[in-house]
């Protein structure tokens, strides 16, 4: 392996106009909330603008020149984005966001189950998506609500049982009962690659092997990994991988679902309407092959073009370099935060198999109040339960402060964070 090249953060920052604005009465913005959404470089904004100024038309319909060029731009984007994760374009479905990608999967289960109950025809292999009471779905205690609530809903509607891999005290998955948790009743295992709240990077490959052993479907929520480290969907061992565009420097309004060809082909449609059909009569409809089967209506074309530009931008930086940079920032921030008396990291303390999302609490000050002082100093972090309320419950906290990094963050940003946390303690009169 070649040594990673350090990122030139000063140069990168020039590509992100928003980072030069000030907040709260003239404070320079220190943006440490990339886990919620990333900022966008001018290359992404220019790509979207160029599309609207020169190409815009509804894709996959119409025969005029703009329609051809727009369709070409959309499908080129699919090429670029699938290549970014080591996949093939025909295996990449565009959705509204990662939440929709995951709902697409759970609704494939539900729709297959409903159709089977009525004796309706399923796509070839669709029986794998038919659930019965007694079947089991396995997730983890560390999931974002987006990979928890849809499964709860699916189980409540089908009678399947939801089980989960528990957390250890230090913010890792407790894999000691994996052999019994994932068993012959397991129909689907769905886990997050990197936790949005704790930063933990899960052993996806190992869990995938367990899923494969019992012929369970294996779904990975890669929202927090694909923007921050090299990810090759082919080597994860996953059948389906969901992630969002807006966390990887791309626009809002677009998410992705990559799937193995035969898995996507076996899934009945989720949202139905135009563009996803093969033949429609008043009596009934047959459906297009993936990915079109899952892309009803005029899709988010400019967003796809913008997301492709984001993938190109990250490719130019080099994802191994991005990962190394954020790993160094994470280590520096863990040390800096832990040097402050009364600060407690919620999640892995050692900088091994963990990414750049750091949750912490400050003794004697509620997370919201810490966040308010940070905000006053120009430091933008997220406070609350981070759409992972069960994780907060697991560690006995109502809310945490979370700092999360992106390619444009430097060590100076971590210094600002640490200084602001000290200010918060002083402001609220918390003594050591």
């Amino acid at each position, binding site marked *: 392996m070649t040594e990673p090249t350090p990122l030139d953060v000063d140069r990168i920052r020039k590509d992100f106009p928003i980072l030069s604005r000030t907040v*709260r*009465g003239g404070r320079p913005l220190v943006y440490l909330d990339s886990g919620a959404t990333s900022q966008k470089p001018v290359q992404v904004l220019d790509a979207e603008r160029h599309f609207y100024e020169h190409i815009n038309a509804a894709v996959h319909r119409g025969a005029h020149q703009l329609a051809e060029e727009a369709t070409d731009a959309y499908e080129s984007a699919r090429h670029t984005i699938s290549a970014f994760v080591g996949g093939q374009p025909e295996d990449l479905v565009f959705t509204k966001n990662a939440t929709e990608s995951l709902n697409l999967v759970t609704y494939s289960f539900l729709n297959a189950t409903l159709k089977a109950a009525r004796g309706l025809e399923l796509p070839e292999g669709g029986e794998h998506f038919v659930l019965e009471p007694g079947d089991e779905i396995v997730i983890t205690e560390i999931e974002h609500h987006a990979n928890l609530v849809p499964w709860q809903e699916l189980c409540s509607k089908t009678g399947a049982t939801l089980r989960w891999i528990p957390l250890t005290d230090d913010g890792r998955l407790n894999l000691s009962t994996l052999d019994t948790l994932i068993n012959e009743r397991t129909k689907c295992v769905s886990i997050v690659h990197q936790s949005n709240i704790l930063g933990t990077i899960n052993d996806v490959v190992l869990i995938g092997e367990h899923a494969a052993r019992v012929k369970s479907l294996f779904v990975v929520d890669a929202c927090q990994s694909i923007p921050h480290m090299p990810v090759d969907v082919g080597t994860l061992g996953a059948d389906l991988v969901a992630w969002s565009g807006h966390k990887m420097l791309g626009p809002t309004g677009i998410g992705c679902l990559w799937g193995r060809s035969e898995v996507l082909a076996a899934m009945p449609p989720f949202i139905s309407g135009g563009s996803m059909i093969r033949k429609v009569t008043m009596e009934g409809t047959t459906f297009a092959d993936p990915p079109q089967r899952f892309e009803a209506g005029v899709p988010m074309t400019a967003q796809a073009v913008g997301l492709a530009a984001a993938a190109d931008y990250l490719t130019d930086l080099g994802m191994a370099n991005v990962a190394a940079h954020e790993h160094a920032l994470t280590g520096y921030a863990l040390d800096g935060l832990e040097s402050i008396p009364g600060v407690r990291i919620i999640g892995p303390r050692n900088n091994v198999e963990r990414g750049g999302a750091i949750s912490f609490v400050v003794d004697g000050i*509620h*997370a*919201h*109040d810490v966040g*308010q*002082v940070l905000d*006053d100093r120009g430091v933008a972090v997220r*406070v*609350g*339960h981070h759409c992972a*309320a069960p994780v*907060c419950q697991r560690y006995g906290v*109502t*809310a945490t402060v979370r700092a999360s990094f992106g390619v444009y963050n430097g060590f100076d940003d971590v210094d600002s964070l640490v200084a602001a946390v000290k200010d918060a303690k002083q*402001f*609220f009169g918390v003594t050591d």
Partner: protein
Amino acid sequence: MRLDQMYQEVILDHYKNPHGKGLVEPFDSQVHHVNPTCGDEITLRVKLSGAAGSQVVESVSFDSQGCSISQASASVLHDQVEGVSLDQAFLTLDEFSSLMKSATAEVTLDEELLGDAIAFEGVAQYPARIKCALLAWMAFKDAAVQATSAAQPAGDE
């Protein structure tokens, strides 16, 4: 500095020494409210006394976890509505709701009704924190309405 406007001394005092914290018996109604965006929670009890139409808020007590704003707000709520007529309590609630809109709308406020609650004027400047300040007040509204309807004789339309 805006931060000092938000965290006025009176707010921090209520936060550190809250009034009305700790659930008391007896009570007519109990509600549990949460702020779904941050996970803050409050359980609040209300006891009314007196005849319908001239009821008095005999007691307001709560148990809660949350940020300084939500905790202090619950404490101020207790001070402003316990022992006053239900009508006055609802007027105070209206005033507090108006206060929370004061950053974006012209409002005239009855500072006498609001008492210490006027200190939350700075909070209104921060849209993300208005829900923190309103948590206890909305819980009180819910509990008071429930207590009122509980006081109606059964079958009385």
